[in-house]
């Protein structure tokens, strides 16, 4: 009997004892993640690769690199297991290190490991191989993997940027196409500067760049084949063509055609050169951009009296206005690769802004401003924007410098992108790997 009572009572009390303490954590910090990037041992490329990785991660604004002088443990090779207490002591939340070896066929093989220091768990361990001359790409790819593994989003370091390189005085400005890695390395010019070029755009498959050129005196859209380097004429249009933008599958090209004082949006089929008119309105319709699923198009139009943003189906139907900001005009809309935002340039009260809004027009946020900021372009992860900024005229009346900048979608971490000269009209490529 006593045992029975004990059983019943223990059950009752056990029920109480098992109740857990429940704690709600609402909100979090958003500080850069402290990460230790230890040596990449092996060949002399190791330190160069490490340096590029460090620059990429720092540039993102989401990581804080702990200075190597603080490291207690020296990582001798990629297969060494870290002493986590040593890395915890320097407050590293993640640890990256690796080794580099040169293969017989003149390739570099980089092995790396990424650890969660406080959990003591491996987060990533991989080996990549590329030709020796692509060692920077190897570094960017590793940085992408670290970024992706830690933040949960895809990276954007192994990418390129095409832009308009500017030089010379204002009245005799030379504008050339140039392409470079997203960090400014491997810079090269694509055109000679004899004809002014504007608004270059990468095809998502990275085979072509579409742009507007004043070659022959008449502004028209051209495409450059990146494999051959040849310039392709898009075909004769009755008026001026401009503002090209590829479809997500790279098979179609949206463009604007100006004719008799009116501008309409057309869909150009890259393979057969056929054209489809999408808008038909006496107002100026321009700057079209596909949604990432290719079903909708955002564009700007002054059909309401001032330049605003509109969304329509890919066949030109169901046109809806999405921008309603008071006393402002909107231009150069670009749909985010992840589909959640549309970036735009806004002009209000004589000031230029770069902003984002939801595709239905809600949640408008202006993330940067300036004397002249314009032409936003999304990083392939839809997280970072690149745009160009012109500084105000000097007191001597000299034109302010123009350069490229990147900024996080949150409005933080604005960074200047170094170019050999002045720069405008950037367009970000997709991820190269």
């Amino acid at each position: 009997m006593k045992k029975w009572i004990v059983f019943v009572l223990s059950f009752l009390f056990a029920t109480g004892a098992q109740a857990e303490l429940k704690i709600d954590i609402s909100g979090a910090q958003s500080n850069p993640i402290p990460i230790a990037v230890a040596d990449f041992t092996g060949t002399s490329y190791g330190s160069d690769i490490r340096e590029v990785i460090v620059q990429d991660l720092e540039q993102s604004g989401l990581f804080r690199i702990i200075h190597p002088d603080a490291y207690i443990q020296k990582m001798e090779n990629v297969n060494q297991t870290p002493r986590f207490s040593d890395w915890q002591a320097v407050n590293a939340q993640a640890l990256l290190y690796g080794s580099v070896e040169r293969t017989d066929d003149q390739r570099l093989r980089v092995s790396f490991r990424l650890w969660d220091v406080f959990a003591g768990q491996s987060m990533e361990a991989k080996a990549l191989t590329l030709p020796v001359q692509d060692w920077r790409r190897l570094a960017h790819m590793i940085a992408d993997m670290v970024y992706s593994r830690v933040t949960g989003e895809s990276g954007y370091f192994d990418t390129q940027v095409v832009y308009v390189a500017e030089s010379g005085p204002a009245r005799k400005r030379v504008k050339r196409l140039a392409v470079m890695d997203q960090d400014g390395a491997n810079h090269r010019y694509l055109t000679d500067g004899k004809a002014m070029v504007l608004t270059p755009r990468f095809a998502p498959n990275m085979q072509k760049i579409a742009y507007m050129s004043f070659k022959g005196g008449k502004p028209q859209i051209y495409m450059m084949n990146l494999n051959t380097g040849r310039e392709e004429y898009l075909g004769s249009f009755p008026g001026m063509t401009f503002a090209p933008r590829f479809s997500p599958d790279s098979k179609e090209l949206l463009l604007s055609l100006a004719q008799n004082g009116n501008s309409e949006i057309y869909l150009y089929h890259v393979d057969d050169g056929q054209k489809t008119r999408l808008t038909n309105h006496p107002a100026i319709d321009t700057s079209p951009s596909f949604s990432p699923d290719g079903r909708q198009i955002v564009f700007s139009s002054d059909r309401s009296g001032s330049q605003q943003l509109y969304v329509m189906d890919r066949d030109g139907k169901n046109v809806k206005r999405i921008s309603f900001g008071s006393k402002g005009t909107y231009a150069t809309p670009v749909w985010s690769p992840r589909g959640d935002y549309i970036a735009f340039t806004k002009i209000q009260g004589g000031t230029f802004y770069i902003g984002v809004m939801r595709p239905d027009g809600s949640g408008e946020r202006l993330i940067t401003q300036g004397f002249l900021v314009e032409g936003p372009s999304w990083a392939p992860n839809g997280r970072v924007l690149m745009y160009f900024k012109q500084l105000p005229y000097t007191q001597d009346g000299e034109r302010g410098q123009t350069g490229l900048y990147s900024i996080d979608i949150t409005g933080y971490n604005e960074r200047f992108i170094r170019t050999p000269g002045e720069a405008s009209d950037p367009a970000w490529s997709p991820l190269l790997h």
Partner: protein
Amino acid sequence: MGGSFFYSVLLHVIVFAMLLFQLPAWEKRRIETVSAPIMIDLRQVEIAEKTNLPPLKTVQKPKPKAVQAPKPKPAPPQVKKTPSKVSEPKPQPKPKDAVKAVDTKVKKDTAVKPVPQSVPKPANRPAAQPLKAPAEETNDLDSLLASVEKISKKLPEPSLNDIVDTVTREGITGGVKGGVSGSLAQKLSVSEIDFIRSTVQRHWNIDPGAEGMQDMVIEIKVSVDKSGHVWDVKIVDQKRFRSDPAFRSAAESARRAIYICDKMGAESPFQIVASKHPDSYHHWKDMTFMFNPLDGNVS
């Protein structure tokens, strides 16, 4: 036959009493989840377990009347002593000495506990035992069983009132002085829970621009040993953890926050709780954290 009847009655009385004064499990569910965003540093503010408790008098007053009426002598010294200890922690606050004040209070509390045990108790008076040291996980049960045994041995013909009175005091207070409910007395105060919350939150780092943050709640179960060291951290939604990179990133960051707190040594909120509540290990050994990135401020 008579023994069986007695045990049956006894059991019914116990269960009835527990239902009347609420089962510990029910009580905990209702009170434990505290989400009010109060930010108080436990080390600077004098608070803690007594904030949940009514004065000792409410429990001990009935003793002389119900049980001790024939022998009032020994009771008064004990009864007087304990309330004065409980009411001591209310002195005017001295900001700089706040931490010291908490320490001394704890010492006093622990110093008080053995005293009642060493005092000889009059026979047939189980009522003097509530001042037993607060139990660990199984002490509620031990205390209750001990009482039951004493009742059966020392009170050959107990009245129903005596049983109810004894069991109520033993079982419901769990032998913790000054409280009407043992489980209540053993719980962490709102401020202590908030101290854990704020410390963990301070180390939870997320990327506010990441996609899908707005509908992300991460449940993590944390197991702590008696010294306050974390020995297990489990992310509950393993399916989403494996399939959703953004969730995995936020969950790993949350898990990291727990581990970082664990590695704070004497500053660890878990170790602080362990040192303050060594006798209520069962209450804080398992914790469930609900991390919600955007329900508050991302600073």
